């Protein structure tokens, strides 16, 4: 797989910060970033974490701009000089970076439980509840007023499920259906995973659900588990879901398969960034302390990590040996 263009560390594009400011500021009381930033543990949104995850995601232009199923059009050929080609490649890299902005990773939302008024007089008059939605166009969906008048006269704020349903009904969006497709049920996800369509499932999930809804989190976790079980990390590499997957695996300390896959594909820098991120998130583990004392780099870091933290130490040693032999033969020849 030829990776075109530079994979250097990029400054976070301004749009990423704007997008995340929007979601982080809209108050979720148990927001992951704010909660964890108070203690020394780094959050998904930190600059350092984001740069590491972005480096690991890779930038394979052929995969990012892989043909999406569209209407049939004859191909468009252009005649360019070298300079124009470089310019076009540079612009393509910029667009690819925008396409690789990672979707947010948030904690599950707290249930809403707020009563606005209690009118005992209305008890027994109605048989069904009324759901009132504020349809003013300029309000963000998070701040919209959606209230429910129960048959017993209580006027309360709507639950998250009711809110989602009303917003799906009144504000249709492309890719978001009023009734979530049965694809997202657990029994049907297995079928899609058989066909290796993890990325499509995740894209559909992002279009359909909110990032902090339990369905979104469940689908994402199922997908990451399946990928980790079958070691198909390459399906998500160079997509915007790779960062989220790495975050999930590191938090649950299941990084061995990913490490072996990276070494087998000769991506040593990715492997070192993975281990650096692991140490940032679990600073009290033994390999973190050893690495900090010895100030290790590269292959030594991986060896220390393999000895102390990993379960599949043998496999990692084998992969490292194979890699070193390959380096030796290639440098010799």
């Amino acid at each position, binding site marked *: 797989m030829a990776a075109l263009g530079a994979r250097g560390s990029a400054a976070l594009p301004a749009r990423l910060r704007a997008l995340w400011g929007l979601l982080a500021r809209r108050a979720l009381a148990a927001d992951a970033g704010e909660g964890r930033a108070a203690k020394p543990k780094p959050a998904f949104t930190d600059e350092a974490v984001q740069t590491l995850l972005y480096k690991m995601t890779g930038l394979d232009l052929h995969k990012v701009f892989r043909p999406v199923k569209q209407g049939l059009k004859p191909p468009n050929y252009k005649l360019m000089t070298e300079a124009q080609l470089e310019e076009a490649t540079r612009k393509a890299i910029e667009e690819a970076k925008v396409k690789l902005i990672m979707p947010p990773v948030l904690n599950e939302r707290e249930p809403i439980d707020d009563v606005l008024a209690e009118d005992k007089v209305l008890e027994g008059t109605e048989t*069904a509840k*009324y759901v009132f939605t504020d*349809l003013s166009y300029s309000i963000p969906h998070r701040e919209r007023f959606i209230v429910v*008048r129960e048959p017993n006269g209580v006027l309360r704020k709507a639950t998250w499920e009711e809110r989602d349903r009303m917003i799906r009904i009144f504000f249709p969006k492309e890719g978001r259906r009023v009734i979530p497709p049965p694809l997202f049920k657990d029994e049907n996800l297995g079928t899609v995973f058989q066909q290796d369509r993890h990325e499509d499932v995740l894209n559909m999930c992002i279009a359909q659900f909110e990032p902090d809804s339990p369905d979104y989190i469940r689908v994402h976790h199922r997908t990451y588990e399946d990928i980790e079980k079958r070691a198909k990390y390459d399906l998500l590499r160079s997509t915007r879901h790779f960062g989220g997957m790495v975050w999930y695996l590191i938090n649950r300390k299941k990084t061995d398969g990913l490490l072996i896959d990276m070494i087998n594909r000769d991506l040593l820098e990715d492997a070192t960034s993975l281990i650096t991120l692991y140490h940032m998130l679990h600073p009290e583990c033994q390999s973190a302390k050893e690495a900090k004392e010895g100030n290790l780099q590269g292959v030594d870091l991986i060896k220390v990590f393999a000895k102390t933290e990993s379960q599949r130490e043998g496999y990692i040693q084998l992969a490292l040996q194979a890699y070193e032999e390959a380096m030796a033969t290639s440098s010799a020849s």
Partner: protein
Amino acid sequence: AFSAGSRLLRGYRGSHVVIRFALGGCTNRPFYRIVAANSKRARDGKYLEQLGCLDPLPNAYGEKVAGLNLERLRYWLGCGAQLSRPAEKLLGLAGFLPLHPMTVTGAERLRRRRQREQQPEAAPADGSAEPGTAP
């Protein structure tokens, strides 16, 4: 007051803007649109602006769905629009306006009627049971 709302009504004499329900849908399937219209217009005729909708039949989740564009509603109320009685009752239920007094009166009347229906059932039931139990 001379505002944009009253300026639009130059064609009619003695009319005003009302916010009311316009009925749509099919047989045995009503659907109301909450609409700001001239009072002289037909109920389902040309309106100034649609401010929301109400589905009077409960959906699969047992809810009657209503949408209200509160921003525009506030604009028309500020222009001097009047509300029809069902619109006032709906906004009272929503919490935008205080509860309509007729809603409260209707609820109390319903409760009293139900009580009266229960008492005559209780009284003849007692009357018919007693000769059986009493020797």
